[in-house]
């Protein structure tokens, strides 16, 4: 019951907040439209919005998949070849620091203006947080577990896959969560740089035509996708580490006992 109610209340609360901002700052409609007119536009233009949202969603999902898989592989490789880290880490950081926008023309040249380049953007954006988080997790494996594994005859690869990896899963979960929340940006930015479909394209177009309502409606859908994605991933990340107790949901937080 409260599981279903909560999102509704949150949505209503945010809408109210939004409306209040509009009222208090007296923001003109063409900069920050009120929620009501946006929702009206949303309903009116739903087919159009859904069509574009489908494209963006596909880009996000494929980008997320690729980014996570690549990130995981990179983290594992970095952890396997200890020396590699010192050489590759700066490269990874550089790759992260170069704004994807700047790479966009190069990517477009190689991948064209189709979906591939947007997926590449989303992948690029997701890649680093996943790699960094997972690698941090891998390198903080308790030493004693590794010693035990060695006496048990585990070679380096097995140590990595059977000891380090499970021990790093909580950290990997954190990485996944961050990835899930930045993936939509990746796709949308990709669409801004060049495309003819997708929510990012729609937003750019609506913005240029002063259809700010439509732009915010697209934004709303994007936010919805992002939130759903996040909570889905959160669920998966929790499933990954069933042995890890969430000490915030348990009463350990210091409920005082009266008996």
């Amino acid at each position: 019951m409260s599981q279903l109610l909560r999102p509704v209340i949150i949505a209503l609360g945010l809408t109210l907040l939004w409306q209040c901002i509009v009222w208090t700052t007296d923001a003109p409609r063409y900069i920050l439209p009120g929620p009501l007119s946006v929702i009206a536009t949303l309903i009116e233009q739903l087919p159009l919005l859904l069509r574009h949202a489908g494209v963006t969603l596909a880009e996000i999902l494929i980008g997320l998949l690729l980014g996570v898989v690549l990130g995981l592989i990179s983290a594992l490789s970095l952890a396997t070849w200890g020396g590699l880290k010192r050489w590759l880490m700066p490269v990874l950081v550089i790759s992260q620091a170069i704004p994807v926008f700047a790479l966009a023309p190069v990517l477009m040249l190689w991948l064209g203006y189709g979906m591939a380049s947007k997926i590449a953007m989303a992948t690029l954006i997701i890649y680093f947080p996943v790699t960094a988080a997972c690698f941090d997790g891998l390198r903080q494996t308790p030493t004693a577990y590794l010693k035990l594994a060695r006496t048990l005859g585990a070679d380096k690869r097995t140590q990595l896959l059977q000891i380090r990896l499970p021990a790093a899963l909580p950290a990997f979960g954190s990485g996944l969560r961050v990835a899930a929340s930045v993936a939509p940006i990746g796709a949308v930015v990709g669409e801004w740089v060049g495309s003819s479909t997708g929510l990012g394209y729609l937003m750019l177009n609506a913005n240029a035509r002063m259809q700010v309502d439509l732009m915010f409606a697209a934004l709303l859908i994007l936010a919805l996708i992002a939130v759903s994605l996040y909570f889905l991933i959160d669920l998966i990340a929790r499933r990954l580490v069933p042995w890890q107790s969430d000490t915030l949901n348990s009463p350990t937080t210091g409920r005082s006992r009266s008996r």
Partner: protein
Amino acid sequence: ADKVELLLDWFINPDHGPLIVAQQKGYFAEQGLEVSMVEPADPSMPPKLVAAGKADMAINYQPQLHQQIDEGLPLVRVGTLVATPLNSLVVLKDGPVKSIADLKGRKVGYSVSGFEDALLHAMLEKNGLTLKDIELVNVNWSLSPSLISGQVDAVIGAFRNFELNQMDIEGHPGRAFFVEEEGVPAYDELILVINAKDRGDDRYSRFMKAVEKATQFIVNHPQAAWQSFVSYKPDELDNELNKRAWADTLTRFALRPAALDTERYQRFGEFMQQQGLTKATPSVDTYATAP
């Protein structure tokens, strides 16, 4: 002195010549104005900020002004910087597209302005094509690169004084189809707008006087004007591309920047409505004035 905060449409380039020269030569100061200029990266922002009262004045494009008025932004045009269209459809000179009719089945790149499909629609119609015959691709900030590299066969939204020179310098000269020769009514590419509540404020009539004086100076002394222009930001403005663009832009500055051709605005407003970009065509004096 009275302060005026002016938002440009984009980074400073030769299109802004009269403004920069007026600033550098002290024509604004002569009029008792202290003008500060801000360069944004998103051309759609400045009119909004002016409409919201966050800045005094902005550079705008006439087609966009019609759309903005239609959406209810309280804006008033007070002057013209460039009195002809600069927009054009550009293809590679040695490419397969020799006429607009050759575009059938090809890709056309554009940088979103909200107006390009109307332009294309009119141009294609004149040549017996429709929008369905081509594929539109948003290439945002890489008009010339996407054309040169063959990602698209033509681009709309390229400025004839700018992109053509750019391509020429890169060794891939282009060919431009001018929109006003292909079925689109003539319009003012760059205009100056203020908030409607400032209508009648005499700062803007003084402002336009300074711009007019600068334009005359540019026309009379192109070389000296160029020097004055680059002196604004020597290490960024003084390059080959700007030099060539400057020469091509000279002839396009409005010689009477404050003057308003009501009939031309009316005609273009009707064109916009006819293309479905606006819902109504209000009377010109509601959104344009000659201060």
